[in-house]
């Protein structure tokens, strides 16, 4: 045997293996460095999860999960006070149902929770997962965990059905590409200072977002009130489009139900209230698609409560309760949580609350119950010598709306009345040459004694 060849080959392979390991180590080091510099220190999820971990061994009997509608709709102090519970929220912005499942599973394992509340909206079932949100959630829940836990969690995300065939699956190896601070030296150095300088995650979040008030136990909110004039930008149908529910999201909901059932956890799926215009904007889709999610939950023996369809006996949202087109603000969340908690308490004592809600089958009855003009939006269409501006009202079935039009210049508060109250939603703005005008509309229900119920404006460029 040629003894020179075999040891030589072994040395070559050993050198190659060592070279590969060194390359991978250097790559990992560069990646960790980039993550330290660019991944924001202190995300809302990390604040939540670090507080959650600090409550190890303490009593938590109710876990709240879901997207930002859940994150901002359920005031846990109010909920605990109403239900006599000890709750914690692991909700997060754009949380996917897969991550909601993980949150419930974790809470069952750590605290043997008896109650799970999943806050959803239409987009929870019509949209796919957002990789940014999934990465932030994963990083937060993996903080401080052993390497094996992190590796399993990362692999689970990379190999998930939704991402495994896409480039995101490999990009999950580079967390700093998903959520990051600004690229400027100031932002990066501040991030590093906060990370290494003893700033708590909560302090870091508050420095970045001073308007966010954290109450504790995973709940935080804002005090802003929605500007209904900007309803067009807030329309769900514009942001997400009118789409049917995805089968994979309903499957994920089914898995959550199965998890709860097999662990003796009472699940309540609650559709948090949103401004009425964001229910109406879906047209027939809302009443056709929501029952699909409802059926999954009720078939599993759990309850599905859509507070957009709540009757006055259960809950009435105030116009100032909303932060924006989909979330409640702090006041709104407190009011809603009280109503929700009281209703849930009744349900848990065996009472039937069906009569407290309109049904999807009786959609016209719900539409007829809407006695306010929720919003008005404007669209423009150029024509021959005119630009036709059309108002779209978001009101109940059979409600008549009247409109008043003004025109002004951009940047000026001076306006001129160009069309007095009329039920005609269109206005033809005569135009010559090139220029721009701001068209304002005021709208109100016919018979309303208010100066106007809602208004909007649009910049017309011609």
């Amino acid at each position, binding site marked *: 045997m040629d003894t020179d060849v075999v040891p030589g080959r072994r040395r070559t392979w050993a050198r190659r293996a060592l070279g590969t390991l060194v390359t991978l180590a250097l790559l990992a080091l560069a990646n960790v460095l980039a993550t330290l510099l660019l991944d924001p220190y202190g995300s809302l999820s990390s604040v939540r999860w670090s507080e959650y971990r600090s409550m190890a061994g303490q009593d938590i009997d109710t876990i709240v999960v879901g997207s930002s509608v859940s994150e901002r709709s359920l005031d846990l102090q109010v909920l605990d006070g109403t239900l006599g519970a000890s709750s914690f929220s692991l909700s997060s912005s754009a949380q996917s149902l897969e991550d909601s499942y993980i949150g419930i599973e974790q809470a069952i394992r750590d605290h043997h929770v008896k109650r799970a509340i999943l806050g959803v909206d239409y987009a929870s079932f019509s949209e796919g997962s957002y990789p940014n949100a999934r990465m932030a959630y994963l990083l937060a829940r993996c903080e401080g965990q052993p390497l094996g836990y992190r590796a399993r969690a990362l692999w689970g995300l990379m190999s998930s059905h939704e991402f495994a*065939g896409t480039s995101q699956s490999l990009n999950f190896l580079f967390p700093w590409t998903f959520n990051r601070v600004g690229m400027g030296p100031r932002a990066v150095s501040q991030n590093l200072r906060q990370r290494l300088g003893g700033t708590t995650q909560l302090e870091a979040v508050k420095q970045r977002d001073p308007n966010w008030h954290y109450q504790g136990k995973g709940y935080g909110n804002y005090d802003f009130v929605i500007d209904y004039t900007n309803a067009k930008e807030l329309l769900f149908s514009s942001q997400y489009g009118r789409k049917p529910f995805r089968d994979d999201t309903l499957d994920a909901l089914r898995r959550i139900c199965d998890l709860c059932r097999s662990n003796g956890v009472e699940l309540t799926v609650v559709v948090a209230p949103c401004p009425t215009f964001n229910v109406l904007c879906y047209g027939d889709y809302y009443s056709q698609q929501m029952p699909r999610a409802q059926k999954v939950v009720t078939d599993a023996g759990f309850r599905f409560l859509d507070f957009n369809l709540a009757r006055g006996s259960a809950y009435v949202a105030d116009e100032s309760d909303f932060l924006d087109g989909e979330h409640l603000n702090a006041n709104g969340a407190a009011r809603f949580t009280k109503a929700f908690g009281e209703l849930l308490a009744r349900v848990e004592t065996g009472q039937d609350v069906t009569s407290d809600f309109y049904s999807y089958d009786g959609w016209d009855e719900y539409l007829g119950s809407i006695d306010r003009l929720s919003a008005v939006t404007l669209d423009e269409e150029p024509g021959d010598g005119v630009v036709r501006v059309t108002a779209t009202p978001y009101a109940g079935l059979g409600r008549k709306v009247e409109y008043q039009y003004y025109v002004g210049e951009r940047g000026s508060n001076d306006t001129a009345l160009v069309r007095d109250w009329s039920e005609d939603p269109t206005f033809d703005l005569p135009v010559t040459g090139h220029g721009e005008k701001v068209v304002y509309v005021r709208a109100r229900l016919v018979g309303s004694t208010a100066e106007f119920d809602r208004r909007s404006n649009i910049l017309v460029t011609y």
Partner: protein
Amino acid sequence: MELYSLNFVLFLAALAVTYFGVGRILGRGQWVVLLAGSLCFYCLMGGLPTLWLVIATAAVTWAAGLALARLDAECRDRRKAAPDRAVKKEIKARFARLRRVVLLVALACCLGALGYLKYWNVILWQAGAAPSPSSLGLVLPLGISFYTFQAVGYLLDCYNGRVEAERSLPRYLLFVSYFPQLIQGPINRWADLAPQLLGRNRADWDRARRALLLFLFGAMKKYAVANVLSGRIDAIFSSVDAGMPGSVVVLGILLYSAQQYADFSGGIDMVLAASELLGVRMAPNFKRPYFAVSLADFWRRWHVSLGAWMRDYVFYPFALTRPMKALGRWSGERLGRHLGRTLPACCANVLVFLIVGVWHGAEVHYVAWGLYNGLVIAAADLFSPAFARMRTALGADSHPRLWRVWATLRTFLVVNLGWYFDRIYDFGDSLTCLRATFLNFAPQLMKPTLAELFGPKAAGPLGVSYIAIIGCVAIFAVSLVEERGHDVRELVLSRGLLVRTCAYVALLFLIASSYAFSIGGAGGFMYANF
């Protein structure tokens, strides 16, 4: 399934382990693993409903190749037994007719299927017999153009006696369905690919490293440049009107130059790398096209395999037809020797590029694009003596480098003029943009557009625009080094560990940091459903 994804990495890894394992353990039969892997890949890419078409195309061309071989053998036998030359001649003519029938039937099947799926709905729509170009719901199967051209090329090679017909359908099916070439080429030749596909290949460390580097470079082109620029180009050309400044149009076209090259060549790099890992070297498809010194040279460097296919199966056969030969003779006698030689080639060039234009799509702007390229190349051929005299008069021979730079820039401009008809998806809009370029350039209006597309807001937190710029600089640098005859991969891999690692890290980081910020979220390859 994207090429840069966990699924593809796992697929390729599993295939490579099985492929080399079978080779090592059994010593043969690796091609079966490749065939199974290729069919599996096609299904993973969403092609299961149309897999039958791949198999049918392969079956038809395989059977036709065998039929031609059988006819040849029978013709030889009968001619040997023939009593005299007249009978031999008659036998030869009869079998030539039979061979032509076999060829035409097979071509009609394959190209007919391609033509029907690609153009029938569009033709009906343009004739007013269909409400839209997609109303019939005809789905273009993944890679149909590429595997059809490849199969047709094999058949024509069999017909012309260049290759011997393959007797085994599964082996031939591997050639047609070999997975790296399926999405967007290259269009390979039986003579080059078959021995590699059917032969024994061993795992090789250096080849694997080269493949990895090429794969990452290709992915960088695709994601850090093409995907990032795609949304910006859409933003420019989504609403063309008469008032659009020419400077903005030019910006959009230049961005498209980069985007199209990065997308197409990036994808090709990735598939070449995947194939190289397995020990199969496919035909190169790009040879630094933007360094070309003429439009003809450009098309010898861009989509090389399609150009070669068109040259061998359209250009030469057409140029050598009787009418073209007659044209050559007639023009040679009346118009001079140069025209006598050049005119048939000019006609053939126009035909080739008309076909290439239509291959891109049946829309008018693609036809215009094809005609533009064909006519410019034809004109360059026709006037080549005049250009040669001008070159001499200008002293180009004494300043070859300067002349080369000038020729490269000139070619770049000519190519980009052609992109007006390729990227702007309406012929009227293409003309509007051309008019704007020459009559309403308005350079001062480019600045706000640049700021909007590339300024701090558009650049995003990770400066995605800068990522695209870095990517373009990297592509240019690599191309320059390669144009000078150096092997860039060898240069990188022969350096120390630190340099190699820096290359991997830089490429991976460029890819990773780009994907989340591309406006419009471009995903698949531009040519995937061709």
